[in-house]
Structure formats: C-alpha cells, structure tokens
C-alpha cells in the first residue's frame, strides 16, 4: 500500500524541484496509476497540477507535449492525428481503458522509462527530445541510457517530420502489457528508423536494421539484423526466444503497413 504523508501543489516549477530534491522520499505525482500499485512511503507528494504543463502545442518546427498531458489527450489530439499517420495516438490507444488514459500522464511514463512503454519506441523513431527542469533539453535516446537522477520532466519535444510512421504491438488481450512492441519510420528524405521495446527492457533503436531499411535492403536482412543486434530477455509475458521470434514478425507487420 502506498502512503503519502503530505501533499503539495506548488505554483512554480522551481519550488516543485526544490521540494523534490529536499528529501529522498519526496516524489512527483503524475496520474498516480503506477504510484498507487507500489508500496512506498512518500514523504511529500508533489503535484504539478498548477504548473500549466497540460498542452499539445503545434509550433512551426516542432510539437511540444506538456508533461501532465493525459494519454487520452494524446489519443484524441487532432494535431497528433495529423502527424506521421497518427502514430502517437495509436500507440497509447490500447493502454488499459479510456478511464485510465484520462488520468495517466505522458511525462510520468516517459520519465520512468518503463520497459513495456508503448510510447517510447514511437518517440524514439521520431527523434523526440525531453525537456528536463534541471538537465535541460536532451535527446530521448540519450536520456534513456542515463542513470536515474531526480528531475522533473517538463515537456516532450517532437521535431516535425515529413514521413510515415507505424506502431505495432503484440499483447495477449487488449489492456494487457505488450509482450513486444515497436515503431518504424520512413522519411521522405530517405531516413528510416526502427525501435523495438518491451523486450522486456526499454525500447531501443535497432541501428543496423534501421540502416538496412534506409538502404532498402531485403526484409529478411532487416529482420535478421534487428534480431541479432538487440538483446531480448525473459519475464512472465514471454521468453527470450519467443520475443526474438516475435521481433521478426513485428518488423514484417510494420514494413507491410508502412510500405516503401
């Protein structure tokens, strides 16, 4: 059971950050879905509700998504529906149910780097960046490799890309976690990217397979490269071998959907 001893909703991000680092067990509260199923004692729960971080801004060169934006707001956003085949909307649309997505926040999921995250592979192929209060703006790809350090994710920045992108996942039932998920992007400028997540470790770009996709190599070769270069593991959802097998299938499905 979760215990939260005190609650505060600061009016500035500076105040929120100072409170966060003041004590080890002070913690940011997102939509609380994950916090709720934990069994920690939180000294001070810091709610970002007053910081105006709930937005999806359509700017000239990028789209900015505020940290407290809900997954449902991402799913139904017209701006995101019209961006790269609506990949971000699709990626969140199978997460539990509407009532859940009305609460779960995008910043929480990205900052926590969950292995099963359906959003992370998509953000990776789109070259997203994260804007952290203390560390500033960094590439999501680099952020995912970093050691955990207390910070506040303010927003996710997605460069406006001209291309097609698809998300695919394999889950036993709707609402369950993905056994494997992935995203593929092919830009009009010829660039291409493949990212695979829920292996069960966090999403990663398959660099060699992405290059092979860019060079328009045969599908068999792209699949082979991805299965070789990424590491797969075993958990209750599936074995390492099963995931490796699924990876090839996932890439085929994504390639069929995205076309050339």
């Amino acid at each position, binding site marked *: 059971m979760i215990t939260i001893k005190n*609650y505060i909703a600061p009016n500035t991000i500076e105040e929120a950050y100072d409170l966060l680092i003041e004590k080890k067990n002070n913690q940011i509260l997102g939509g*609380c879905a994950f916090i*709720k*199923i934990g069994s920690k004692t939180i000294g001070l729960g810091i709610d970002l509700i007053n910081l105006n971080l709930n937005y999806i801004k359509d700017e000239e060169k990028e789209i900015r998504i505020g940290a407290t934006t809900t997954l449902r707001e991402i799913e139904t956003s017209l701006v995101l529906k019209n961006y790269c085949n609506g990949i971000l909307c699709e990626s969140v649309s199978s997460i539990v*149910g509407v*009532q*859940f997505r*009305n609460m779960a926040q995008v910043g929480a999921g990205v900052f926590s780097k969950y292995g099963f995250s359906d959003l992370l592979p998509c953000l990776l192929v789109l070259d997203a960046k994260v804007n952290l209060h203390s560390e500033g703006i960094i590439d999501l790809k680099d952020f995912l490799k970093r050691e955990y350090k207390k910070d506040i994710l303010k927003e996710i920045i997605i460069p406006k890309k001209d291309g097609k992108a698809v998300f695919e996942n394999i889950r036993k039932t709707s609402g369950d976690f993905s056994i494997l998920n992935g995203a593929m992007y092919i830009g009009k400028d010829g660039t291409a990217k493949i990212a695979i997540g829920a292996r069960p470790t966090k999403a990663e770009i398959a660099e060699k397979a992405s290059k092979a996709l860019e060079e328009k190599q045969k599908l068999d070769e792209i699949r082979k490269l991805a299965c070789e270069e990424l590491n797969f593991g075993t958990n209750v959802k599936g074995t390492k071998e099963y995931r490796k097998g699924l990876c090839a299938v996932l890439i085929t499905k994504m390639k069929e959907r995205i076309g050339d």
Partner: protein
Amino acid sequence: MKLNINNKLIDVDVRPDEFLLETLRKLGYLSVKEGCQSSSCGVCGVLLDEKIILSCTYLTLRAEGRKITTLEGVRERSQYLVDFLAEEGADQCGYCAPGLIMAVMSLENEIDNPTEEEIYHYLDGNLCRCTGYKGQIRAIKKYLDLKSTRSEVI
C-alpha cells in the same frame, strides 16, 4: 476540504493519500464499487468534469474545485440504459453496472453517434466477469439509438 459531488458542495476531511473511491464510499455514495484497486477493472468509475476516471486511483485532494458525478447523480438520465440492460439480460451479479453506466454517460458526453467499434473501444476498460459483453453492447446501442431519435426524452 470541499468537494462538489453531484452538484452539492460537501465538507470532508481527507488524508493526503486518500483516493476518491474511499472518500466517496465513506460519504455514502455506495454505487461506486471497489474492485481491483489497481486501475484495471473499471468498476470504480465516476465522472470528473464530465469525463470518466477511476476513483480508486484519483487522489481526493486533487478533486477540489472539480465536478464529481456518481451514479446517484445521474439516476434519471441513466434509467433508460438501466432498463435496456435488464431487458437484454446484460446484468447478472450487477457489480460492474455502475462503472459501465458511468462510462456510457462519458461516452455520450464525448462522442456523437458512436459506431459499434467506437463503443467497444471506449468501454474496453470496463470488465465484466459474468455476461460476455454482447448483452451490454445491445443495451447500450438501444439506449444511444433512443437518445438520437427522442432527444427530448433523455
């Protein structure tokens, strides 16, 4: 703190780690059911500013200044749906019904004339151990059809 529940302002003392489900049940809103307590089943659904959320996972302190609606607050509006659920044999133990009805109210608030696919997608988070969903979908479609043809009734 003060909570706006079904358009009534109610004074209540809450702990920082109290979730809305506990607060609502302690205040006597017993339509709000407790199930998984882990955001997975949908039985604890209530409306927050007209949209469905899971009360088991929503911190009560956060709800200050917002409008909470439970099944007790939409009795009249939901009566047709309740009747259709009974007619279609879509209720067995009935435990999931309040959460389902609140989700349908939210669906109505959000989507005009939803397709069957949209209804299924919207209600994906409402688990029912007894009925197999078909009866529920029939009832919901009848209810939504009635609404579109006789909007003055509902």
